[in-house]
């Protein structure tokens, strides 16, 4: 096989990253901020903090629902979510004067610290990063595909970069960053050093990005990765009764069922029934650290107490496993705050690499443009007759 020249790899490296440089940089930057979006909310909004000076035990989610329901008697609560232990739980509801509201409820004190309507910082950042706010129609968003396409860009830039940078492994043992030999040398060293040290991160982002692309194709083609939770058989609903019947099994019962089923289960996402044939959906995290916070869970029939469907890593097929491990690997929340910090640092490095790469290319292009201009001005000063004579030689 013919050996490909350095010039070829260099050109390929530029082709991968340069044409969409601005979008690539933007996606890296928004992703980096998204990694710590909860923590930034915690820093900037005291009402989002789950302060617990009295070291109280965490209240069950059903109690948080009751607290919000008592405070807003006409509210209809749909969802309860929990995140890191230092962030308040969110209870999502609608009310006669609120089409969509999020209550920050301190899970230790039970205090409703704030009710917000509209977009949160976390939702804003993640939507911006994942699909650039391009609209969704029929299960797809052009923005989502555009962002997923960055996985190819990253993978191509990584492979071609490594082909250019021979013996790149020396950067681990003898890192080189020359800061006193001019801007061009400094930028080139910084770009190469950051690239080699971020290799694992680039591979991880590329692979998860390719998975998101596969997922998008499946969404658009109506291929289900996870089956919808079954509905309650209509025969199980009371019939011919005078008053609205009360469901015999409560949310607390549903959470208890999930806790008994999975060891170390912690509910993180609960959906209450949206109609009388709907189930309680109780999802959470368990022992598998690489799995997301929705990897364990049950749907519980509120009329019979029966578990209608069950989710756990042991019962997942390959696609379901990928869908539940992709986010923790992409956003770095596999080990809490510390892994988020690591992901943030490497995200910042990646964003920086897209900038240094452009600056290196820009420097070379500007120099080339100047050289061309100089040549043109030299030729313009030479008499035409002389040029003709030169050509005729």
């Amino acid at each position, binding site marked *: 096989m013919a050996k490909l020249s350095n010039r070829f790899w260099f050109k390929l490296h530029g082709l991968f990253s*340069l*044409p*969409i*440089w*601005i*979008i690539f940089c*933007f996606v890296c930057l928004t992703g980096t901020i998204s990694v710590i979006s909860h923590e930034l909310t915690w820093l900037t909004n005291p009402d989002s903090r789950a302060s617990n000076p009295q070291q109280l035990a965490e209240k069950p989610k059903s109690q948080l629902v009751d607290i919000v329901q008592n405070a807003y008697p006409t509210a*209809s609560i*749909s969802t309860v979510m929990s995140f890191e232990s230092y962030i308040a739980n969110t209870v999502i509801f*609608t*009310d*006669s004067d609120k*089409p969509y509201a999020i209550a920050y409820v301190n899970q230790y004190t039970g205090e409703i610290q704030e009710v917000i309507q*509209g*977009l949160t910082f976390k939702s804003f950042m993640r939507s*911006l990063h994942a699909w*650039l*706010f*391009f*609209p969704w*129609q*029929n*299960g797809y968003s052009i*923005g989502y595909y*555009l962002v997923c396409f960055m996985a190819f860009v990253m993978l191509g830039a990584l492979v071609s970069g490594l082909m250019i940078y021979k013996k790149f492994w020396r950067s681990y043992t003898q890192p080189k960053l020359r800061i006193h030999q001019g801007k061009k040398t400094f930028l080139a060293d910084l770009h190469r050093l950051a690239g080699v040290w971020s290799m694992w991160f680039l591979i991880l982002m590329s692979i998860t990005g390719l998975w998101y692309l596969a997922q998008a194709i499946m969404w658009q083609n*109506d291929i*289900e990765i996870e089956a*919808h939770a079954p*509905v309650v058989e*209509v025969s199980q*609903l*009371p*019939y*011919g*009764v*005078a*008053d*609205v*019947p009360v469901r015999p099994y409560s949310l607390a019962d549903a959470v208890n069922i999930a806790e008994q089923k999975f060891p170390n289960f912690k509910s993180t996402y609960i959906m209450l029934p*949206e*109609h*009388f*044939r*709907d189930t309680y959906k109780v999802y959470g995290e368990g022992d598998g650290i690489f799995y997301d916070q929705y990897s364990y869970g049950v749907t519980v029939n509120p009329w019979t107490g029966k578990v209608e469907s069950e989710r756990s890593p042991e019962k997942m097929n390959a696609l379901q496993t990928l869908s539940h491990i992709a986010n923790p690997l992409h956003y770095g929340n596999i080990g809490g705050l510390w892994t988020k910090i690591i992901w943030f640092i490497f995200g910042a490095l990646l964003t920086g690499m897209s900038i240094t790469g452009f600056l290196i*290319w820009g420097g*070379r*292009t500007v*120099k*080339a*443009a100047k*050289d*061309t201009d100089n040549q043109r001005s030299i030729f313009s000063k030479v008499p035409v007759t002389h040029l003709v004579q030169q050509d005729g030689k």
Partner: protein
Amino acid sequence: MARLSNSMWDRYKYKVNGLVLILSCFFLYKNLFPQFPDAWSTKSIGSFEVTPMPYNLNSPYMHDGTYTKDFLLLFSQGEVADIRQAYFNIGAAPLSLADMQDADAGILHGSQHAQEVHAIAPKVIQADHRAWLTIENWQGKLKTVSWAIPKNLHQ
């Protein structure tokens, strides 16, 4: 030395990049201030008064093996809790409750403040189609009401 190319793409590629990001701002604005089509007329069905509103004027889309069109239904009279089950479908005639209750396609869901539905629809909405709402209450009484479909939804 880097080689300069002066193709159309080379001249405008960064402007195209920037334009995509400007589009993000535009779509964010559209997201924050959504515009919906006109709501349909309010109709009575049993003890309820209902006003449907399509979310958009797009054709039905395939979801879970069924062509679907999304609607918001506002109940200005009657308690949503009094509904045992209710379904919305588009077609020449209402689908029978016996058929619809086998699954959850077209079932009304949400809260007393607003109900949503992914209505069962044909692939192509035609002039002779209507939108049908079927409600069963806890006493087992069944009621159906229908709306003519505005021309802007016909294909």
